[in-house]
């Protein structure tokens, strides 16, 4: 009987050597005459255990990780000589998937299939509950689909947390010959990889979510705007789109319903600002990715001037759960006005980094201590940047804050796209504040002055603070500058760059005092 061995084709797994492990297993199977089928699944997001391989047994799977190419040889040797009994005794054997507490403790809705399925097999997706949402949606009126999404409480996962159903309602209510569904897959925030993981592990879920959205608002064309840094995701998406079209789940006359919807993937070109929705639309139109004034809202005048839904990957993916399981099911998860699950990403200086999907409401500490296990360096944690490069540096006094949109807003921080980047005590917060300004200067679209010029002045000011023995005056100027950028910028890029800067100054003032040892202490 054929034994299936699963080895992720995920970017991070491969960055840690999964490709060479896969080759080694294929070669060793040949040499030893073993009847083995290698399946390149998606990652489960337990990146601290990658490369992680799974060997199928009686419908379950035995897990090994992290394994090197040499370990793979050893595991196959044991398997060929002693069978499953030997495997379970192997020092790298972690038991079955459910034995990995880091994974089994999570509430996986959006990432329920990640790691279980082959992202290139549509049948595998269907076998694991895929396309149940679309089946429901095809029996519903557009207004009812929108109502279902509204009552689930789902809010935009890209960072702005705008109620998804309300956005869809606006597009549905706007009359036009042509409407669009666009997926923002320009996941540029440092410390985030959930979109990438989903597109590489479970691409059909995104396609299904977009198709449901298209039915709801009456769109016939969709675009996925994917960042160029994600070549593997491009490959899995294009493959999945072709498969879905082949099965008439996408394209003309979907499932014989008379509805048509096409999806095209467009690749960005290395501009962070194109993650801002209006800039993304300009880029999709083949222009410079310049931020647009709002209003008009994209829902009314979006891509090529037509009503357009712009949603993040995780938002569109979550819609499949909402439709398949019902809005009440989704509503049950979460805290306050943040409903459903948060897909947090543990990154930076962290011992057990990866994707943690839990209901909104857990504390930051539970995540980076309970799941993350503290720093990779073993040194004490000093600061945690939550919500990407425009998010605040959160000090120890705030680590018990509940992870929901409102609770983070109250402490002057934001959840954003769920990135959690941990720094140990060697971090120099003046350098981090400087980098925030520098990043804004590099990535600003240049349309508004506070962002374009303010960021450059910010870098200069922080350099002067570093050199100056008494920097009280410059610190005041920095605060003035932050105020100007915050209230005068056209979009979140210039408007939120002050957030990491101010949080660094406020919570770590000692790093902005004169220190002639600077540069030595790190």
């Amino acid at each position, binding site marked *: 009987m054929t034994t299936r061995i699963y080895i992720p084709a995920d*970017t*991070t797994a*491969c*960055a*840690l050597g999964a490709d060479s492990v896969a080759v080694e297993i294929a070669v060793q199977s040949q040499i030893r005459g073993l009847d083995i089928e290698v399946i390149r699944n998606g990652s489960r997001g337990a*990146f*601290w255990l*990658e490369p992680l391989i799974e060997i199928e047994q009686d419908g379950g799977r035995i897990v090994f990780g992290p394994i090197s190419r040499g370990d793979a040889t050893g595991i196959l040797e044991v398997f060929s000589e002693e069978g499953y009994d030997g495997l379970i005794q192997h020092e790298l054997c972690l038991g079955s998937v459910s034995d990995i507490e880091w994974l089994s403790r999570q509430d996986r809705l959006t990432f329920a299939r990640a790691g279980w399925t082959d992202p290139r097999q549509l049948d595998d997706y269907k076998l694991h509950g895929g396309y149940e949402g679309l089946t429901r949606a095809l029996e519903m009126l557009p207004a009812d689909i929108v109502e279902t999404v509204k009552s689930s409480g789902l809010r935009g996962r890209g960072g702005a947390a705008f109620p998804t159903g309300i956005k869809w309602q606006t597009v549905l209510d706007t009359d036009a010959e042509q409407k669009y569904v666009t997926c923002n897959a320009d*996941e*540029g*925030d*440092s*410390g*985030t*990889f959930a*979109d*990438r993981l989903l597109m590489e592990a479970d691409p059909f879920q995104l396609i299904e979510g977009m198709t449901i959205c298209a039915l709801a608002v009456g769109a016939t064309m969709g675009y996925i705007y994917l960042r*160029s*840094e*994600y*070549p*593997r995701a491009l*490959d899995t998406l294009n493959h999945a789109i072709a498969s879905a079209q082949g099965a008439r789940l996408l394209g003309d006359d979907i499932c014989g319903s008379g509805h048509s919807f096409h999806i095209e993937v*467009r*690749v*960005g*070109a*290395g*501009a*962070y600002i194109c993650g801002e929705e209006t800039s993304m639309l300009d*880029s*999709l*139109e*083949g*222009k*410079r*990715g310049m931020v647009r004034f709002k209003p008009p809202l994209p829902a009314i005048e979006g891509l*090529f001037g037509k009503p357009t839904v712009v949603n993040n990957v995780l938002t569109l993916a979550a819609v499949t759960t909402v439709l398949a399981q019902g809005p009440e099911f989704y509503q049950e998860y979460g805290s306050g006005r943040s409903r459903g699950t948060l897909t947090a*990403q543990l*990154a*930076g*200086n*962290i011992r057990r*980094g*990866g994707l943690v999907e839990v209901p909104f409401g857990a504390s930051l500490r539970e995540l980076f201590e309970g799941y993350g296990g503290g720093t*990779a360096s073993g040194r004490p944690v000093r600061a945690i*940047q939550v919500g990407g*490069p425009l998010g605040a540096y959160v000090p120890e006094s705030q680590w018990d804050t509940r992870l929901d949109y409102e609770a983070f807003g109250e402490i002057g921080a934001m959840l954003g796209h769920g*990135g959690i*980047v941990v*720094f*140990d005590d060697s*971090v120099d917060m003046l*350098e*981090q504040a400087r*980098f925030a300004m520098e*990043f804004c200067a*590099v*990535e600003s*679209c240049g349309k508004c002055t506070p962002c374009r010029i303010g960021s450059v002045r910010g870098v200069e000011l922080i350099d002067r603070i570093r050199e100056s023995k008494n920097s009280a005056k410059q610190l005041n100027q920095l605060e003035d500058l932050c105020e100007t950028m915050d209230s005068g910028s056209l979009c979140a890029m210039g408007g939120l760059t002050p957030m990491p800067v101010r949080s660094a100054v406020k919570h770590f003032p000692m790093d902005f005092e004169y220190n002639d040892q600077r540069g030595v202490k790190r």
Partner: protein
Amino acid sequence: MDDYRQKESRVSSNNQRPEEVVASAVLRYADTAGGLLPLLHDIQGVLGHIPKENVADIARGMGLSRAEVHGVISFYHDFHTEPRGLTTIQVCRAEACQAMGSRELEQHVKESLGVEYGGTTSDGRFTLDPVYCLGNCACSPSIRIGNEVHARVDASRFEELLAEHKTI
């Protein structure tokens, strides 16, 4: 992945005339809504860069002004108008990698290759670029060589990777 690998090898063995490459890309994208970005990706995928001399042809073919085409090329970090090294090395400069020592790594990489960001090694093999996030943030610091991302890279691991790449 295959598409990308092919593109990489095409750059090294390509001897197509830029005019022909531009003409065929224009043929493919002239009627595509918002087709300029995919067109530029296509041209750069074959030629390795987008020659300045061909901007006028691109503009004419796409029904745009030269200023519009130049504006788009210069806006995006990915597009280049000058020839580049055979392989691009990107070092992630973003926060998650900083937390794991990428500031030291980028210094090492610059010294090892003997170039600053944007520079090409004297043998024409590598061009060094900064990148702001490769989506590999749980296993930082990250670099990308060609289309392969590498995790937990320090100075010695970088040297290993470089040596491996040179033997290919």
